[in-house]
């Protein structure tokens, strides 16, 4: 299920929330004298609804999520039980990490690996996962994909989350979760299961045990959720149509202006879509009593590439820093090791976004730029006027999106050429029409990428308390009505993270 659908908004969400609000954290069922069974009611509800939410989109692969959860939970319990046996603890960690990486390797990267091997060695090996799918289809007729491995939605998010638990437990940063319901509710927590943010166990450990829900938190969550919904449905979907059109064109024929408008449209689409999803997740979390970490902080205002990545998909950056970069030695083992570590982290970050060379190149592109900034260019950037360094960073990001979303390196190269006029003309009638019919949405997106609305809200909150107080419910109602009208007739409402 996706948040931006009528089914989720009007049925799943109100039913789950209302039951949830009136449920206590725990219910004690008396069993005879002095004995009672304590049911963690809210966690159980989160677990069940999370499964339903996930299975709605992945009715078959929900088994994989359950399997992964079971292994990580058991690994956690074993580590706790053999607290004084370092070897067993290490084995537990290795099992958990290998299992999670293994799931990613099989379900996300196996096609990519076999395609690469086949094209390098001229072989024709069929991916065993495909063979397995065919065998299962022969028996059960599930309609599993027989030519490409279908990526289970959100697998990159929940495997990374589960790993944060076992790794931190191994490092003794957190306490073990003894309740299976408690641990599973962390993994299946529906607000963040399909598109992040990557909530580490540490972030919510206390709230899994005990959390409070009140009108203040719920209304705060509603406001955040509405903001995210508006970003996704009103901004991202509307500007995304432009990119969908341009992306399908023949890059050798398009004018430079068309190419620029197209990729700028994607630049805004991916930001508002992704940060919109994160906002919705954070908002839903609030309504349920959780505090998820911030995932985006106006990234297009960054003055360097390093800063951009501190403000874009923050939880992913944190994850790679905590569990890859620092364990590799970070920047404390000399220049050569630091550079190596950066390249590894960025190649992996790229690959995390999808199994294709485009993503690897995209990741390394950022890795190299960050290294360049580290060895001195960053100092120069700091001295430049902020308009210049912001424009530099923005353009770098825009070029990055070409690598990210053109499907193959050959197409990316063609698109780059089109951006610099290889299509013949600077601006043809197509570009003029795209520009004149979408100028308003571009302007709105530009303003919405800045802190201007945040500053306005902060001003009202401070100086005009009353106006601010009532502006929130008014805005929520407007967003709900507008988004509903866009969702009822949604010919274009894509889910962009199916490759993550």
């Amino acid at each position, binding site marked *: 299920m996706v948040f931006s659908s009528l089914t989720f908004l*009007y049925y799943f969400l*109100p039913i789950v929330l209302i039951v949830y609000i009136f449920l206590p954290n725990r219910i004690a069922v008396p069993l005879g004298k002095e004995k009672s069974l304590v049911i963690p009611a809210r966690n159980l509800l989160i677990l069940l609804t999370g499964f339903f939410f996930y299975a709605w989109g992945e009715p078959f692969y929900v088994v994989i999520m359950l399997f992964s959860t079971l292994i990580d939970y058991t690994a956690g319990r074993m580590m706790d039980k053999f607290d004084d046996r370092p070897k067993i603890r290490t084995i537990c960690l290795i099992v958990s990490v290998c299992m999670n990486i293994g799931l990613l390797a099989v379900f996300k990267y196996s096609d990519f690996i076999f395609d690469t091997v086949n094209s390098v060695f001229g072989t024709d090996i069929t991916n065993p996962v495909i063979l397995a799918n065919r065998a299962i289809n022969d028996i*059960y007729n599930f*309609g599993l994909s027989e030519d490409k491995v279908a990526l289970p939605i959100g697998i990159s998010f929940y495997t990374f989350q589960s790993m944060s638990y076992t790794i931190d437990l191994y490092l003794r940063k957190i306490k073990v979760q003894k309740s299976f319901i408690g641990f599973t509710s962390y993994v299946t927590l529906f607000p963040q299961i399909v598109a992040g943010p990557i909530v580490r166990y540490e972030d919510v450990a206390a709230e899994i045990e005990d959390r409070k829900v009140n009108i203040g938190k719920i209304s705060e969550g509603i*406001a955040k959720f509405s903001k995210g919904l508006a970003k996704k449905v009103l901004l991202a979907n509307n500007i995304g149509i432009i990119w969908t059109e341009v992306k399908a064109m023949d890059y050798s024929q398009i004018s430079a202006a068309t190419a620029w408008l197209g990729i700028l449209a994607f630049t805004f689409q991916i930001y508002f879509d992704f940060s919109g999803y994160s906002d919705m997740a954070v908002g839903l979390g609030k309504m349920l009593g959780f505090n998820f970490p911030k995932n985006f902080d106006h990234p297009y205002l960054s003055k360097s590439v390093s800063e951009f990545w501190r403000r874009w998909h923050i939880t992913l950056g944190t994850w790679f820093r905590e569990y890859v970069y620092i364990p590799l030695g970070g920047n404390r083992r000399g220049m050569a090791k630091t550079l190596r570590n950066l390249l590894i982290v960025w190649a992996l970050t790229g690959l995390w976004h999808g199994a294709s060379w485009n993503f690897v190149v995209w990741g390394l592109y950022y890795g190299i730029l960050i290294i360049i900034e580290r060895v001195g260019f960053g100092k120069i950037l700091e001295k430049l006027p902020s308009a210049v360094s912001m424009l530099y960073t923005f353009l770098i990001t825009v070029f990055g999106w070409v690598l990210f979303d053109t499907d193959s390196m050959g197409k990316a190269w063609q698109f780059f050429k089109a951006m610099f006029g290889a299509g013949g003309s600077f601006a043809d009638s*197509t570009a*003029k029409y795209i520009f004149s019919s979408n100028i308003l949405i571009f302007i709105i997106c530009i303003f919405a990428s800045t802190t201007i609305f945040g500053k306005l809200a902060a001003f009202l909150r401070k100086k005009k308390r009353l106006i601010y107080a009532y502006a929130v419910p008014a805005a*929520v109602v407007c967003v709900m009505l507008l988004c509903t009208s866009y*969702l009822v007739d949604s010919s274009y409402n894509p889910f962009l993270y199916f490759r993550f």
Partner: protein
Amino acid sequence: MLKKKKRLNLPNLITCIAFFGILIFMAVMTIVLPKQDFLEMENKYAEKLPKFSAKAVFNRTYMNKTENYISDHFAGRIGWIKARTVLETSLGKRERNGIYILDDRLVEKIPEPDYSSVDKAIAAINKFAEGNDIPVFTMIVPTSAEIYADELPENAPSADQKEFINYVYRNLSRSVNTIDVYPVMFSNRDDYIYYRTDHHWTTKGAYLAYAAAGKKMGYDPVPLELFDVEHAGIDFIGTFYSKTLYDGVEKDIMDIYHLNGEYQVTEVAVTSDFGKDPEIYESMYFREYLDKKDKYAAFLGTNVPIVEIKSENSGGKLLIIKDSYAHCYAPFLTQHYSDITLVDMRYINMSLNKVIDVSGYDQILILYNASSFMTDTDIRKLGYGQ
């Protein structure tokens, strides 16, 4: 000691009540309001509530259909869509669901044709014309998007139909007689020759083409003055309206042209399914459709494989290979032919000769509008068995 009273934050309470209020109200209304099987305004069938089965769940059709069901039956669906159209047009957007919104009409956004596909249709027509020793005529009618191209939003992409029609006519072999109606349509563009809210031409538009084709096809067209015009369909809102639900364009009027005292139609035989006997009607005008949304179907009904019109006239027999533009065109021809057979190639999946005896006709007319000819993949079936 007085207990400190907890201050209730009113705006927060309003936020919660408003949010959940909207959600619950709409969700409940959607469930309780009566459901329609056919969404008439949008001219499409609504999704049915899916049946639960393990297979439907595992291949996700159950979920997809449930989502479509909720969306199709969502309370106030038409109102929500209209609100969006009003909002967007008031913000200056002139395009919606592949339709351009002009000042006083809606026209279709027609993408550039795929010429390799068009060439196949042309080749099939050539093969068909050469394989049958009967005069073949082709008429490709420009649509309103071409005739009113100058009213489109600035720089709006739209295929050049005039160029397209010329391309087709140039590539048809000499055994095909081409009838160019672009000049007559364009010079009468100030007249009411296309519907404002539908993709068809009006009866007047069809008349102009009929009159212009007379010379080539060898008949003297009946003068316009002799017809009694009946405004049969009032407040007609067509397919373009269905796609936009835009109320800013005046509704259409659908006319029927009557010719009293002249040759009358004796029988209209409609074959909707092969292998079944045709249904016989007395009139070309199916008046029950005049009270429905799809009023254009009053001309010879909806699209079916074969319609045969017999009239008192003693003229020749005419075969029309056509799209729905022919439906309001064919009535004029009953003054010149004893027997007119209309064939819709979409439903013919074998050699045409197996369905009807082509050699029994005196003339063959291939009549399409340019937009449907551009994307059609069924005309190429004319080449079968030739």
